[in-house]
């Protein structure tokens, strides 16, 4: 037997460990992530109070249609039916955000439950859950959402259900990967040996560790979900006219692409800003919580 310095039985704690190069720096969010957090907060604020501050988004004056941005009383101009674009943009924030947010919340709860269950189950339980989820990976996600939404009929709740269904599998995979990683660590064995029930292990040992990567992943997923939700509306599968909603506005405004090209760009820009903000925030959270990056949906 050769003895090593590292393995020296009498070494004072720490004496064998490789020295850290520098005192551990406290992790902080990057500037861009903090800006993104501010934008997200602003969007949420507008979603809550915005509709109370602007006038009726459906009030239109046919005589004043397609006014350019900057016209008197219409900062962003009017649309094809003479409705104020700014009012519709602000009013539509709530629905556009909800349509993207709710599916992710649903997917976070269901996906985490499935993923943790699969991760803690034996071979067959694990297989049953993960193979079933694999089936959903066999569909191009957007197309599956479209098929489900089309089958259920248009309406915002149906679009939310459709999106939730396609977002569950990737969240479940993230949760499952993390659970399996934890299950390989010693302290889980210790918990099992101490006679803790499966449910107790799941809620006390696993959940607190699975939560950070899931939160990080879902934050970025909100950005994607907002784009998808608006996309379903754009295709006529979300809210029905004349409700103000960003995706529907894009599709509304597209008819005037030659007469008022910027009109379609306004709601599209709103979708872009919201989506980028959530994506950047997700990246920032990942750095902050020191979570390894995961594959995207």
């Amino acid at each position, binding site marked *: *037997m*050769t*003895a*090593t*310095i*590292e393995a*020296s*039985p*009498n*070494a*004072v704690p*720490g*004496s*064998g*460990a*490789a*020295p*850290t*190069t*520098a005192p551990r720096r406290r992790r902080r969010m990057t500037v861009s992530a903090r800006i993104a957090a501010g934008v997200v907060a602003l969007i949420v604020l507008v979603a809550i109070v915005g509709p109370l501050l602007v006038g009726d988004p459906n009030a239109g004056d046919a005589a004043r249609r397609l006014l350019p941005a900057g016209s008197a009383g219409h900062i962003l101009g009017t649309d094809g039916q003479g409705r104020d674009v700014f009012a519709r943009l602000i009013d539509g924030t709530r629905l556009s955000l909800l349509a993207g947010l709710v599916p992710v919340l649903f997917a976070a709860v269901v996906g985490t439950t499935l993923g943790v269950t699969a991760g803690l189950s034996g071979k067959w339980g694990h297989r049953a859950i993960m193979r079933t989820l694999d089936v959903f990976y066999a569909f191009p996600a957007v197309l599956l959402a479209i098929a489900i939404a089309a089958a259920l009929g248009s309406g915002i709740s149906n679009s939310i259900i459709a999106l939730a269904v396609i977002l569950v599998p990737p969240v479940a995979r993230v949760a499952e990967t993390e659970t399996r990683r934890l299950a390989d660590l010693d302290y889980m064995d210790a918990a099992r040996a101490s006679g803790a029930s499966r449910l107790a292990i799941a809620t006390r040992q696993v959940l607190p560790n699975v939560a950070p990567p899931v939160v990080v992943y879902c934050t970025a997923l909100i950005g994607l979900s907002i784009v998808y939700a608006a996309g379903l509306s754009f295709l006529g599968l979300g809210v029905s006219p004349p409700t103000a909603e960003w995706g529907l506005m894009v599709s509304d405004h597209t008819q005037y692409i030659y007469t008022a090209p910027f009109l379609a760009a306004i709601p599209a820009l709103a979708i872009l800003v919201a989506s980028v903000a959530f994506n950047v925030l997700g990246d920032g959270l990942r750095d902050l919580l020191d979570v390894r990056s995961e594959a995207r949906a």
Partner: protein
Amino acid sequence: MTTSLEKDPAATDTTVAPLQVTDLTTTFVSRHRSVDVVRGVSFTLRRGETMMLLGESGSGKSVTARSIMQLYGSAAKIGGSVTMNGRELLGLPAPELRSLRGGQVALIPQDPTGALDPLRRIGSQLVEVLGVHGVATTKQAARRRAEELLAMVGIPDPKRVADSYPHQLSGGMRQRAVIAIAVSCDPQVLIADEPTTALDVTVQAQILELIVELQQRSGTAVLMVTHDVGVARDFGGRIGVMYAGRLVEEGPAAQVLGEPRHPYTSGLLAALPTPGVARGALRSIVGSPPPVGAFPAGCAFAPRCPQARPSCHEQDPPLVTVAPDRAAACPVANPGPAQERAA
């Protein structure tokens, strides 16, 4: 830092030394700061000789080895001098450096799995190196030579191994293959950086034996990096004990390990479990080594040294001769005339 190794004139004839390192310093530079990791290391490696670098993990052994081969590129500033047969290596133009690396000086890294390209067959990785250094000119010759080399490092079925991918081999076989690549161009200096740490205990001894055998067969000089006193003891040759980026003691392995002069070396040896001695009775080194970038002024070992004096915290003692063929960087090591000479 000044180093005054006083040896007989023949031994210091640098023109014949395959490797001479003088006052080597390595500083990692990043945008925000620069840290000294190796701080004035000097030693001479003669033909057929073995030199051991022994020290705790993080003491700068691997960085010393890689600095000699200049593998850090622009990430590190390297100072001092590294010569092979009298020819200066630091600052050589890239093409000459390339023909040197793998040609005259070769590296066996710690983890054989990481040292091989996982997507290429062993044979093709060997053939590539042979081709780069012009050892074999035709494909067939290179392939034949590759199989010979694999057989030479004790691989029983070289043909099959040459056609295998790294993941198809055991850890020991992989390390043999890595060694075959390292010795493929008959290097004068072989640098082995903890070549057995990643391996099973059972194959560790075999790999060390293989290195000794290759060394004896071709007269290669070996620089062996290890944190394992047992390995150092088995290997013999000369030994340099490293602490915080500096050599603190140097001399023939048997003498240094048998009768250490520097308090750090004594601490290392005392930390070893000895048969017949109750574990609790062992002395060991208190505390942990200083992190790079935060070396204390004076002797870096002072905060942990049981024999430290007030002056130790102010002045870093140089490596001086304390006995024939032996040097140590500590006034305690030789309270006799040598210390007065240095002072």
